[in-house]
């Protein structure tokens, strides 16, 4: 049984991606008989190429993928370099961690309200400092260059990369390397960059690629903050897929393949950049310059990190205020009055989506957990961990743009009459939940002291008993945190729920984005808060449960 886990896991991760890609590849080459596409050809690509503004859309996607990732990585790297082991680091780290579970859409709405000309920042200083009685006509949000979109993405990806980096740090022996560098006279930042970063980067390379893939194919954040005319390629794709002119399906499918090419190109450019940086870095190391005067750099890194954190936190605070706002006109900093009406109105309609979110999230998480535990236990017993290739398989669903394969996957589910069922939505979520659960659990699992299992065995415990009575309970905290991560990922899923669920499985996130079309900030506020609270509930349970269960076991609490 256990031996079936790895192939099953690979199937869950790769199957839907491959099936979905086949589903878009056929129409991309003209094959979709129900619309009269009976033979293969390149017409859809010709049609695609003739689209007005396509070049700009592609450039936007490429830029979003590369600039976002570069900016986020720089901030994270220099922040760790300059501040690791300081109180500032500890404080910011504690604030950043929960931000990871804030859904992208919610964060984007918050930031939009913060930086818009009628937003909180301008309200804070108007009309007293600016003389503005009405909002100025500045193109800040939805700017054609996509700067607002990229800023929003950077703010949201910084927590992700920071936590990935922190997870990898123990394997880099950072503290001792830093001491050695310092004793050789290197500044804090330079010492980290020269002595630790190359090892750290190797560990977080796949997460970095995932950020490139995500940012170059993002839909929800782009809808809120991104350029509209033309939008980035992925937004354009979704529009085509939903165009009432059904012939657009061909163009959309060709576009999906183009999206994959764009994402791959972004990653390729990044890899070239890696080589360049490696060469420059080697030269810098060889120069022996100590970089002791790094005060300004350290300050800038902390400022950038704080700015990103503040943007999300303040934005969410703004949404929370909106969810309670009565009349609230420019330039008032706060609403004229507060009311619970928005929450009252939402209360009735929230029940079903919240229930669906829980059911889908919990089932997907449990399945992911079972597969992950089975794989890890199998690995522990056989000693085969699949190596680097298995890591690539894990990251595959995160590296292939969602829009590109989900559309094709839809057809597959229809064919088996599974569309719109909870089960189908769970399967679609699983594709994205499983990698995160696996990544979250594999490190603590592999770090577990094997001797406990040996002791259990020599005391007469079968492998199953050793697993259930020793390994699993001792790793309960890690298992629960992995589950909370999986649940948070499930809560945030938009496209998979929408496409596979067909509107019959409305979750909080699909409802939030559907309602967002109304631009009613009170409703958006309510849903964004709910969207945010659900993952927090998961993490709260993950922390509280071991604390309660093991309240009399101090070694377990210390471990958690």
């Amino acid at each position, binding site marked *: 049984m256990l031996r079936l886990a790895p192939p099953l896991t*690979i199937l869950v991760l790769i*199957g*839907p991606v*491959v*099936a*979905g890609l*086949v*589903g878009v590849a*056929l129409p991309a080459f003209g094959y*979709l008989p*129900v619309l009269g596409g009976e033979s293969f050809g390149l017409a859809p690509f010709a049609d695609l190429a003739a689209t*007005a*503004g396509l070049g700009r859309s592609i450039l936007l996607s490429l830029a979003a993928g590369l600039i976002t990732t570069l900016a986020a990585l720089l901030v994270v790297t220099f922040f760790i370099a300059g501040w690791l082991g300081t109180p500032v680091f500890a404080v910011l780290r504690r604030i950043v961690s929960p931000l990871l579970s804030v859904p992208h859409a919610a964060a984007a709405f918050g930031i939009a309200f913060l930086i818009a000309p*009628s937003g909180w920042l301008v309200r804070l200083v108007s009309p007293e400092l600016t003389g503005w*009685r009405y*909002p100025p*006509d500045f*193109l800040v949000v*939805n700017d*054609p260059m996509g700067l607002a979109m990229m800023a929003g993405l950077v703010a949201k990806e910084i927590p992700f990369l920071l936590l990935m980096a922190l997870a990898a740090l123990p394997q880099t022996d950072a503290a001792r390397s830093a001491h050695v560098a310092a004793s050789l006279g290197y500044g804090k930042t330079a010492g980290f960059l020269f002595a630790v970063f190359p090892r750290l980067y190797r560990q977080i390379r796949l997460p970095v690629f995932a950020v490139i893939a995500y940012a170059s194919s993002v839909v929800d954040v782009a809808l809120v903050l991104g*350029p*509209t*005319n*033309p939008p980035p390629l992925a937004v354009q794709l979704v529009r085509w*897929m*939903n*165009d*009432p*002119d*059904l012939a657009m*399906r061909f163009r959309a499918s060709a576009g999906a393949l183009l999206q994959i090419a764009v994402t791959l190109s972004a990653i390729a450019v990044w890899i070239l950049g890696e080589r360049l940086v490696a060469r420059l870095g080697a030269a810098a190391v060889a120069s022996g310059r100590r970089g002791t005067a790094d005060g300004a750099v350290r300050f800038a890194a902390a400022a950038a990190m704080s700015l990103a954190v503040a943007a999300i936190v303040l934005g969410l605070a703004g949404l929370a205020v909106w969810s309670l706002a*009565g*009349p609230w*006109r*420019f330039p008032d900093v706060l609403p*004229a009055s507060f009311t619970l009406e928005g929450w009252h109105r939402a209360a*009735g*309609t929230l029940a079903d989506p919240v229930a669906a979110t829980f059911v889908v999230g919990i089932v997907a998480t449990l399945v992911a957990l079972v597969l992950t535990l089975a794989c890890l236990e199998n690995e522990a017993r056989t000693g085969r961990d699949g190596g680097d290739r298995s890591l690539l398989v894990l990251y595959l669903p995160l590296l292939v743009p969602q829009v590109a394969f989900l559309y*094709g996957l839809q*057809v*597959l589910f*229809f*064919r*088996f*009459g599974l*569309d719109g069922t909870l089960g189908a939505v769970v399967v679609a979520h699983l594709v994205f939940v499983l990698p995160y659960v696996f990544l979250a659990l594999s490190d603590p699992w592999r770090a577990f002291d094997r001797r406990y299992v040996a002791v259990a065995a020599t005391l007469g415990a079968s492998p199953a008993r050793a697993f259930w009575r020793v390994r699993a309970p001792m790793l309960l905290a890690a298992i629960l945190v992995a589950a909370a991560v999986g649940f948070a990922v499930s809560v945030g899923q938009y496209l998979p729920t929408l496409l596979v669920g*067909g*509107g*019959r499985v*409305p979750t909080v996130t699909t*409802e939030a*984005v*559907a*309602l*967002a*079309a109304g*631009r*009613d*900030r009170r*409703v958006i506020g309510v849903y964004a808060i709910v969207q945010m609270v659900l993952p927090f509930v998961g993490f709260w349970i993950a922390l509280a449960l071991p604390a309660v269960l093991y309240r009399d076991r101090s070694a377990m609490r210390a471990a958690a």
Partner: protein
Amino acid sequence: MTIWKRLGAAALVLGLATGGAAAADPDPKNWDAVLAEAKGETVYWHAWAGESRINDYIAWVGAEVEKRFGVKLVHAKVSDTAEVVARVLAEKTAGKTGGGSVDLVWINGENFAAMKREGLLAAAPWSSALPNYALVDTAGKPTTTSDFTVPVDGLEAPWGMAQLVFYHDTARTPDAPKSAQSLIDWAAAHPGRFTYPQPPDFTGSTFLKQMLYELVPDRAMLEKPAEETDFDAAAAPLFAYLDKLHPLMWREGRAFPENASALRTLLADGEIEIAFSFHQTEASTAIGKGELPDTVRSYVMDIGTIGNTHFVAMPFNANAKAGAMVVADFLMSPDAQIEKQKPEVWGDFTVLDVARLAAADRARLDAIDLGIATLSPAELGKVLPEPHPSWMVRLEEAWKKRYGA
């Protein structure tokens, strides 16, 4: 993996190959049988969900049909009706001829034309055979039988009347422009304070058509498909006009709001001074909620504004056809229509012929206070019929080509 690949391909190929007849549809002429069949059915109604007051109204409808007919109604919330068209098409692609995921869809215009053209709608005529259809004002409201000039043919049931209405804050903007020329003059005097939703948003495209009505060399051209006329010549004055208007607009025309709701929010924030909507009571409702100041008033253009009817349609593979018919019929009932017209509920005007209503119903309808910023039928003036849907398609394409890059 290879198995999955094969499955995926097989799914597509098989899906396309299978066809087959669906079970016999319920017959609305035998209404008692429809009611009996509908009882206990669950109807998935895919409807745009961008306005909470509309969602609340749909929830009210759900409670009523459950109480009255034992039909369970589920509002599948949609951000763009085109998604529903895509979904039904995908089901047809996959060979799903029955048990579809959509039972009822809120629709009109381009989306209706597309579904009709692709044969995605349930067999006609069902809507005109519904009991309450007899009350529909087909003579006084011709758009109930001709959806953007496309004949309805009993394929969709009229649900509500919409007309493009502009609004402004009289305290800030005393004199609102009521023609294309005065609009551009006003914009020159108030740079950055006017915009329109980005086509192909419905309201944005309607603004283009509204301006086209004033600028087109010959209005009769609009009744025919755009392909049969000289579209470029017809649209040239419009685009020349927009070329001049855009630099005077909000964000100099380099960004556009997403839809009518976003437009209203911009007005509420004071970023723009003129907004418009397809809901005649939009301004009153927003005033009631405290979203807009009570100095906001509505107006229409001197030449009148575009009006249309919105409908509910049933896909060919709907799973609960009897239930869907019961819901569609209830939507046309005096009770539902009167409730919908209340501005605090929705403020969407009725499709029924008021003269044909029972005296009590008529009194209820008259008793509705439409709100401080709502125009009376007389003030609403002339309704300009929608051009053929092809105009919308061509205008959106041309707009995108010109301003989309």
